[in-house]
């Protein structure tokens, strides 16, 4: 018995790298690593070699040269003498705008459609099924160009608004002009504006911060916080005395009055769009390309989200609904209080990947001439400077960063929801 306590001490042999499971994994890893290094190394050396042959030195200096082209849709100031860097930044912001808008509307539409697909109304349920199948089974690029074509062909041109008996008129009390160049809506203006703060001087990253907006946000944030405190106070009072004071009017006043006062002080008024020369001027111009892309992406993604919502709702066992019904809840409250909160847990992970898909699909903007990152950096800039390697790599890097940010943010949220639930 005592003879077998120590395993025989083996000296290390080369063959153990393959036969011994303790070392084999290390061998495989080292081999994989070497293979990967060789792959990367050969790609880099090939690239350098090929670029030298073509007489191009990889360099990012083109980013600071003047871009020379104009961008119609822009959140920050830009003109064609600004650098390619600035143009790319404008493009990036445009990507983010359409992605955020798209995600919001796609979610709203998707939830509505998903719930309606389960509606007891036969016609509505069928129509929603048709909607979902129609959008899921046709490429999104086709939808984008299709919707763009519909907008262009069916909406009136600005010149239809002209004349004494115009063919088209502005809607919503003459304040909104819906044209095939886009939608013009009134813009907020201030008589006693506080002005802007200019950040980053003349660099490519420069931007203006509107003090009016900042002031408004601060006041609104403050009043929302106050309103929350009031609710907490009411809750505490209810806990201790069992009597809940009526607070909704106080809370409403706390939220509305300070903002309204601020607006009054700043001299808030709306700037209406007006037909001047070739175009409407004044107001905020939501361009057709943005609307078409936004609409197409949201409608397309909504079809997927609807399916997710539907399967999420169906995943909740019938016993939950029946138990809630037995408690005397109305169908609407059953949905809001019992089914949806549970379904969310099933819904959120696939929802994240749909948000990611939407963001990535927004790169199809070039099909309708919306100047997003693909249209500026990987479009005109690449074309004018001939720097394919630099622009494409930079563009991929930016998209990758956006994707990783979105997925980590959503995963964080997902984990939070999970913790609250369990």
């Amino acid at each position, binding site marked *: 018995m005592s003879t077998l306590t120590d395993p025989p001490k083996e000296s290390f042999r080369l063959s153990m790298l*393959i*036969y011994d499971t303790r070392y*084999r*994994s290390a061998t*495989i*890893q*080292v081999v*994989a*690593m070497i293979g*990967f290094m060789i792959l990367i190394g*050969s*790609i880099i050396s*090939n*690239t350098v*070699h*090929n*670029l030298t*042959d073509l007489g191009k030195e990889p360099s990012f200096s083109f980013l600071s040269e003047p871009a020379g082209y104009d961008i119609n849709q822009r959140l920050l100031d830009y003109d064609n003498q600004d650098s390619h860097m600035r143009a790319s930044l404008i493009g990036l912001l445009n990507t983010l705008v359409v992605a955020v808008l798209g995600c919001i509307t796609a979610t709203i539409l998707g939830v509505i459609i998903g719930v309606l697909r389960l*509606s*007891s*109304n*036969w*016609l*509505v349920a069928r*129509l929603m099924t048709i909607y979902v*199948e*129609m959008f*899921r*089974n*046709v*490429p*999104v*690029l*086709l939808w984008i*160009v*299709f919707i763009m*074509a519909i907008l262009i*062909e069916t909406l009136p041109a600005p010149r239809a608004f002209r004349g004494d008996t115009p063919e088209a008129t502005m809607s919503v009390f003459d304040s909104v002009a819906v044209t095939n160049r886009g939608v013009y809506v009134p813009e907020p203006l201030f008589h006693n504006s506080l002005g802007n703060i200019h950040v980053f001087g003349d660099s490519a990253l420069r931007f203006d911060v509107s003090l009016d907006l900042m002031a408004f946000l601060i006041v609104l944030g403050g009043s929302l916080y106050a309103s929350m405190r009031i609710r907490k106070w009411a809750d505490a009072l209810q806990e201790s005395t069992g009597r809940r004071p009526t607070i909704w009017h106080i809370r409403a006043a706390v939220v509305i009055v300070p903002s309204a006062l601020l607006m009054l002080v700043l001299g808030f008024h709306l700037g209406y769009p007006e037909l001047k020369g070739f175009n409407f001027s004044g107001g905020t111009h939501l361009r057709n390309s943005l609307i078409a892309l936004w609409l197409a992406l949201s409608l397309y993604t909504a079809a997927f989200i609807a399916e997710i919502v539907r399967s999420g709702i169906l995943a909740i066992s019938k016993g939950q609904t029946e138990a809630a019904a037995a408690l005397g809840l109305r169908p609407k409250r059953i949905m809001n209080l019992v089914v949806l909160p549970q379904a969310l847990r099933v819904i959120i992970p696939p929802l994240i990947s749909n948000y*990611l898909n939407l963001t*990535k*699909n927004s*790169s*199809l903007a*070039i*099909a309708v001439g919306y100047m997003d990152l*693909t249209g500026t950096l*990987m479009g005109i800039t*690449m074309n004018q400077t001939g720097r*394919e*390697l630099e622009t*494409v790599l930079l*563009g*991929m890097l930016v*998209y*990758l960063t956006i*994707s*990783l940010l979105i997925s980590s943010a959503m995963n964080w949220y997902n984990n939070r929801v999970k913790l609250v639930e369990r």
Partner: protein
Amino acid sequence: MSDISFVRTEMLPPKDPPASEVGVVGWARANLFSGWFNSILTVVSLYFVIKILIGLIGWAWVPTWSATSLPECRVIFEELGRSGHNAGACWGVIAERWPQLLFGFYPNGYEEGTADLRWRPVLAFVLLFVALAPVLFSDKVPAKLIYFTAVYPFLMPWLLWGGTVWTPVSAALGFVLGYVVYKALAQSTSELIGLIVGVVAAFVWWLFVASLFSSALASVVPLALESVESRQFGGFMLSITIGVVAIGLSLPIGIVLALGRQSDLLIVKTLCVGFIEFIRGVPLITLLFVASTLLNIFMPPGTNFDIIMRVFIMVTLFASAYMAEVIRGGLAALPKGQYEGADSLGLNYWQAQRLIIMPQALKISIPGIVSTFIGVFKDTTLVSVIGLFDPLNLTNAIRADADWNGLVWELYGFIALLFFVFCFGMSRYSMYLERKLQTGHR
């Protein structure tokens, strides 16, 4: 005996339910007009459906099938008393161009001295279903058909690209050689050595021997199809080819990546995760830009793939990342007992994967694989951005013909319809499969 009680001995016949509860009316009341909200919804949706249908049918129902140009269509509309920008559909463009939308520039025998070769993609497409039958409808077809499935990956490129039959045969022989070497070495030495040497042997065969072998055989037995350049691919044929090739090639890559992602080996895992997340994090269009502008720069000087090959490569990489995630889902869905069971039988890693894990995981993943395929198939329209003639880009080419300049809806509608038919069919199949698998699994 004054209080006479009456006891009824037979039941009254049941009354018919009220007319409002049965038949069409009853159905409509229950399903369309239950409550004021539903009634409004029904009426509003009916209104829109009818309005859209009337508009659409009025537009589409015009005798323009034989028109040979847009001006000719306009003449027909004028005769019908219609005018304006969207007076009606000009179907002549579809009548004239549908072969192009389906086959692109595949040789159609129009030019003198050339043959109409379009039967080849059609045959390849039909055979695709035969090859897939053992997988898709395993209970309805003879099991022997699986051999054809194994042959198909070599048959399809031969049918599409043509050339001597010995090229695909020698490519297939590479696999056979690799397997034989693996078997021989795995018996005598170790599995790992067998695997490595087998793979090396296959590559040596492909790189150095295969071309000699096939050209030698071709000179002895010249059995060849007329070869077709991949540039001549276009239209739906291109979309389907890209989709099928990408999914076919991405399946093995995806399995390897999924296993790598699950593995305990840190470096392997990191590499796999990095690759998957990178590909999934960037839009396909940027990968296509890489295919069109950068891939040649990454290659050793002198190599030059044509653009369709490069697109195949990038779309395959793209699909593999998604495939890896689908298969990972399948692996995760397997109960832990299966892994433990395999271990307790004393199977090693690869044996367990091959005999226990993968067959089950792949079966669970089939719906996911089908939907990945639908996604990739739809995404093939993106190649229009880099100038390949998929159906969407063909519309631009067709509209560059002075006869058809100015058409929009007919072409988009036709393409959308074809895509819909394909994708809808596949998604229905995947749902059927999901149901079948669910009952089989629980």
